[in-house]
């Protein structure tokens, strides 16, 4: 299956320049979710750079990332692998068609006790 998502798409969504990476592995050395992931943070950088986007999009690894940003914080080259993982996740969501709800539904849902974060994540849930 081909998702037609290119390296350029992921780089544009994330704002990351993968060429800055020197493959020291500090991101994967620091990652608390390492054992849960099929592809590790440094592999995301490598695989995005070389266009292996489909494999990443099909992998459960994108949901195992805790978005703790430890890799981003400690990267000596400021590559920001966490943003790449988030971008792949975004690409998957965008492929899934419509969101659960539209922006117009939000005012009616707003309630003091309901955290706004919940609405935002509901936006991200896709139909399929």
């Amino acid at each position, binding site marked *: 299956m081909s998702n037609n998502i290119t390296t350029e798409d992921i780089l544009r969504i994330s704002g990351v320049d993968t060429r*800055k990476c*020197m*493959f*020291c*592995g*500090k*991101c*994967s*050395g*620091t*990652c608390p979710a*390492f*054992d849960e992931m099929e592809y*590790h943070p*440094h*592999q995301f950088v490598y695989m995005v750079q070389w266009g292996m986007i489909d494999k990443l999009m099909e992998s459960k690894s994108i949901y195992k990332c805790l978005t703790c940003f*430890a890799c981003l*914080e*400690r*990267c*000596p*080259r*400021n590559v920001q692998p966490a943003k790449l993982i988030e971008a792949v996740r975004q690409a998957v969501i965008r492929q899934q068609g419509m969101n659960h709800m539209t922006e117009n539904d939000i005012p009616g849902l707003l309630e003091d006790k309901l955290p706004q974060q919940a609405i935002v994540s509901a936006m991200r849930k896709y139909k399929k």
Partner: protein
Amino acid sequence: MQKIGVFVCWCGSNIAATVDVKAVANAMRSEPGVVFSTDYQYMCSENGQNLIKDAIRDYKLDGIVVCSCSPRMHEATFRKTAMAAGLNPYMVEIANIREQCSWIHKDMPEGTEKAMVLARAAIAKVKKNAPLTAGTSPVTKRALVIGGGIAGIQTALDVADAGYEVDIVEKSPTIGGRMAQLDKTFPTLDCAACILTPKMVEANQHEKINLITYSELENVSGFVGNFTARIRKKARHVDEKKCTGCGVCTEKCPSRKGLNEFNMGLNTRGAIYIPFAQAIPNLAVIDTSNCIHFKTGKCGICEKNCSAGAIKFDQEDEIIERKYGAIVVATGFKPIDASYFDEYAYTQSKDVVTSLEFERLMNAAGPSKGVLVRPSDGEHPHDITFIQCVGSRCSHDATKGKEYCSKICCMYTAKHAMLVREKYPDVNVHVFYIDVRTPGKNFDEFYRRAVEQYDVDYIKGMVGKVTVEGKKLHVQGSSLLSNDQLHIYSDMVVLATAIEPDPTARSIGTMLTASMDTNDFFTEAHPKLRPVESPTAGIFLSGVCQGPKDIPETVAQAGAAASKVIGLLSKNELVGNPCVAHANELLCNGCSQCERVCPYGAITYVEKEVRGPEFRGVKRVAQVNEAVCQGCGACTVTCPSTAMDLKGFSNNQIIAEVDAICR
């Protein structure tokens, strides 16, 4: 009417491909004042130069314009050519039709037109040129070396052996620098002190070398051949002539709070101390911030115990002012502060140390007498992890660290790993690396020995974090080749921290007007062809102050800097630059603005009798010291009454150029 000659160079195809050189030469022939104009393939070649010489003689030219490359490239060449033909060298003007024309244009008609404009501007200027004669200045035959590490010592020895006097100014109480702190040296594993201390002794005993230790440079003025340096010799509170270096005072001193700088603060020393056993000069020094006498007025135990009567609590700083012909910067380096990288728990555990601290822990004169123990509890470690590239090779937009490779860390880490395995075969040694960089004679062989002969566990990958878990250090890192995350429980972690220029380098660079890069390393005059000279004349570079390097490279560079110093000091006088400022005394209004902007202190004001058509009498006027003036022109643009002018670049000449371009 003046007789000007124009010479248009092809520079092979460099110029001729984008500029119609024949058209330029033809067009210039009809310019007023031009009596001769021609083109040639390589004007800088011997034939080209002969063509110029012949034209000067045949046409009795009194000014020439060479349309060629940048004046930085060949202005000196063509000035010599003119001089050989009997023309004053300052009657030569260069029109830069290569760097500023042919190289940046693609279109031939456009390039040709611009070349003509540039040539016309140069013709307009040369018509207003006046013959200039360069003055000379004497050379003080003494060199100053800033920094007494291996770089400074080697430069001083080489200069002194050539027969010139050298002063070494060193900020700490002893010479020796960083190399004195090292245990062994790669790739031969000979002891650093064994090869360094004889050089320290030689420097001390050399009749031409004068050591000015525990002293700091306060101010430098002057110019190449004629620098004046003011040095503050800090009070040791010990009489240098009386102290025998017996060390009794250092043992009796009841204050034990001062951190031992030589041992990287791993242990303490007395308030009166001798930095280390082989210190040169072997003299005690009082650290007044920790001395009980200086804090309370009491104690004085050192004074009572000194049989030589050398303690002088009332000693004061001394100012030394001396002239030098050349100055060598050898200010060296320090490791970066590892606490910026707290993911490695440097501030949380005493057992996480930097590599320089590890040198002291391994050294027989170190805090543990050469027995490798954990700093926290004094126990023997069974597992040690080394982490390379801590603070090196970081990107410019990363939150911390240096962009450059510190160059020496791969080798000293291999050395540490090997020494540990040699002395303590029961200790497991891991090294996390990104790349192992070992370019150097016998360097890669050395690293392979660590892997193959000493079973050092080299892991390709970086450590993400170190956490303190009980008595152990939990090292979590990646092994890229096995695509694994490793969890190693070590007893000690050693950080190969990046090196950075000594913090004093920046202020010294400012004092010397010597340029530095963004990392505070000194810049060389040319990165390939003039690697030991600063762009500022008379300032030379030795050792790590110019960029990371190991001991053999430092010694080689120190010798190269020395040979440049010797070349300078062997001259009796230097030919100056005649393009200096001068004040028109009739126009000068005595405002002092030029004096304030002059970066070289070349301008003074005097009361002088001035006679002109509109004014007669005594007035305050600017006077330029032509030997000190560097011709920067700052005064000419500052002067509100246009009294200041630069010879060879006068306001008249520049306006004439602009007029020619706008014609």
